[in-house]
């Protein structure tokens, strides 16, 4: 009996050793992590990384629900999706002892509403969503969301908005000064009417194309993510990113530990690796957003560190995260979106 026990524990050890230098399965956004960083992780740990990619939070959720949960160790959902996945029981938790680099997380991102106390997720990159304007076309004041929702004549018919329910409806709500997840009929009706009215002045809905339409000149103004706008500027478009006075949308992509992760230990190693300032900075230099890790500044490219898109003016109105509404309320927002795009 004792021998059997010994054999078993040796087997367990062997299995442990194998997984320590084994593999890691990452479910990630397209083009969101530099290959050099993946190679560095493999060089440091001997763990071979396979990456599978998705193109929207919902596509990731759909394919995990359709049966891929248990195939991946980590995924990179946005803030509201972390809350949804946690609610669905799709996330595993880690302890502070395991996540030795937990202390590297910037204080304001340590205790977040979508993962209180950071038990399942670590920050990957965060940024904001508002709009940019081509300054060759329009030189006026761009400090209000009215540029998108009640545009001046110069911009009418030349506006691209993100093809994303969350961003459009939250920015619209900010413009009207109504809270998220409201159930007040008058407010919802006003939001719906305002959007339908504004849509006449929009040229297109497009998320993937948000940068290209600004660079090519197809659109003179457009809702956009801050890092994306920085890239448009880097490509030569004279665009200015606005932090409007009504507020803007904040988002954060997070690395989460998935339930039934086949290589849980390696996933923890990977997450710790991403919390090293140098590695977090490498992602930022690649993606042009902002990391949620302290001490990254020395490793950042100068252009990224000082970009106006990543550094809101001191007096900018605060940003808001997308809230997860209850099902009945969400139905109303879905109906507004369908009505807008019917």
């Amino acid at each position: 009996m004792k021998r059997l026990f010994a054999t078993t524990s040796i087997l367990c050890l062997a299995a442990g050793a194998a997984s320590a230098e084994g593999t890691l399965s990452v479910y990630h956004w397209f083009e969101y992590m530099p290959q050099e960083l993946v190679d560095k992780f493999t060089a440091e740990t001997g763990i071979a990384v396979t990456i599978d990619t998705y193109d929207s939070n919902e596509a990731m959720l759909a394919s995990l629900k359709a049966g891929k949960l248990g195939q991946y160790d980590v995924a990179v959902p946005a803030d509201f999706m972390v809350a949804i996945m946690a609610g669905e029981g799709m996330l595993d938790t880690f302890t502070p002892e395991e996540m030795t680099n937990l202390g590297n997380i910037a204080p304001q991102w340590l205790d977040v509403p979508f993962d209180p106390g950071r038990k399942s997720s670590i920050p990957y990159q965060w940024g904001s969503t508002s709009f940019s304007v081509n300054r060759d076309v329009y030189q006026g004041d761009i400090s209000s969301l009215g540029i998108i929702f009640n545009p001046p004549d110069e911009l009418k018919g030349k506006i691209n908005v993100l093809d994303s329910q969350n961003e459009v409806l939250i920015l619209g709500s900010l413009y009207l000064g109504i809270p998220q997840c409201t159930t007040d009929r008058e407010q919802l009706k006003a939001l719906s009417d305002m959007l339908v009215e504004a849509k006449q002045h929009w040229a297109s809905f497009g998320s993937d194309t948000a940068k290209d339409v600004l660079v090519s000149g197809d659109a003179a103004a457009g809702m956009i993510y801050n890092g994306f706008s920085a890239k448009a500027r880097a490509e030569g478009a004279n665009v200015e990113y606005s932090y409007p006075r009504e507020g803007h949308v904040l988002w954060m992509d997070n690395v989460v530990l998935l339930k039934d992760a086949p290589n849980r230990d390696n996933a923890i190693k990977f997450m710790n690796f991403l919390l090293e300032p140098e590695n977090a900075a490498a992602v930022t230099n690649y993606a042009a957003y902002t990391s949620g890790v302290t001490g990254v500044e020395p490793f950042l490219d100068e252009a990224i560190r000082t970009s106006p898109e990543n550094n809101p003016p001191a007096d900018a109105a605060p940003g808001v995260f997308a809230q997860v509404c209850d099902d009945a309320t969400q139905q109303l927002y879905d109906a507004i979106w369908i009505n807008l795009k019917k």
Partner: protein
Amino acid sequence: MALRSVRHYPGFLAVTVLCLVVLYAPLVVVTAYSFNDSPSITTWGGLSLRWYVDVFTGPEAPRFRAAAWNSLSIAFLAATIATGIATAAALAMLRAGKFKGRSLTFALINLPLMVPEIVIAVATLIFFTMIGFTTGYLTILIAHITFCIPFAYLPIAARLQGIDGSYEAAARDLYATRAQSFFLVLLPLMAPGVVSGYLLAFIISLDDFIITNFVKGAGMETLPTAIFGSVKQGIKPNIMAISTLMLAVSILFVTLSYFINRKGR
């Protein structure tokens, strides 16, 4: 009236030229921008080969190589198998008399056309998971064969419908077995339909993103799934370079087949 002139319709040449211009004009853009020095696909920054260098030696080069290989091998296998299946089905549908369930089979063959891709994608993934298939190369191949069948079938059937039965009858009168008369008489007559069907199945498989993205396993990539990396970062010119390389490969095939054809004559 001479034979040539009944074949000739005024304006058809012009339309063909127009057709080719329309087909190739966007490719001129793709090729031109693959040599663009700027990291943008909408502004011009001078001539450069940097994106080709990036495709072959850049950090993502192994990924692109694997993706290109997967795409081409899956398209080749899926088109070949689907064309075989479709040819057999066409014979049964058009050369085996009337039978019960013929309309139903016709609908079945065309079913992959009728179901929106995203629905096939989600449904197939759920199904594979239910029966315990691990997603990977094989699941992509199975899914591709399935949705390629109607694209191969329709041109083959259209062709077979126009083939006079007397050729086969003559072959059978000369004591050819059914297999002999198929391979020596019917198949050569069907060839344009089979080639058309094969080509359509091939490009449909090569192009598929939605279904592949759902049924592929971790670490598996095809060119479309590698290319759709545009979402967060915008399309980079190295994708233009890859596309141009794919064009070059396909034109190489055309040229080769032309010369093989001529030599064979």
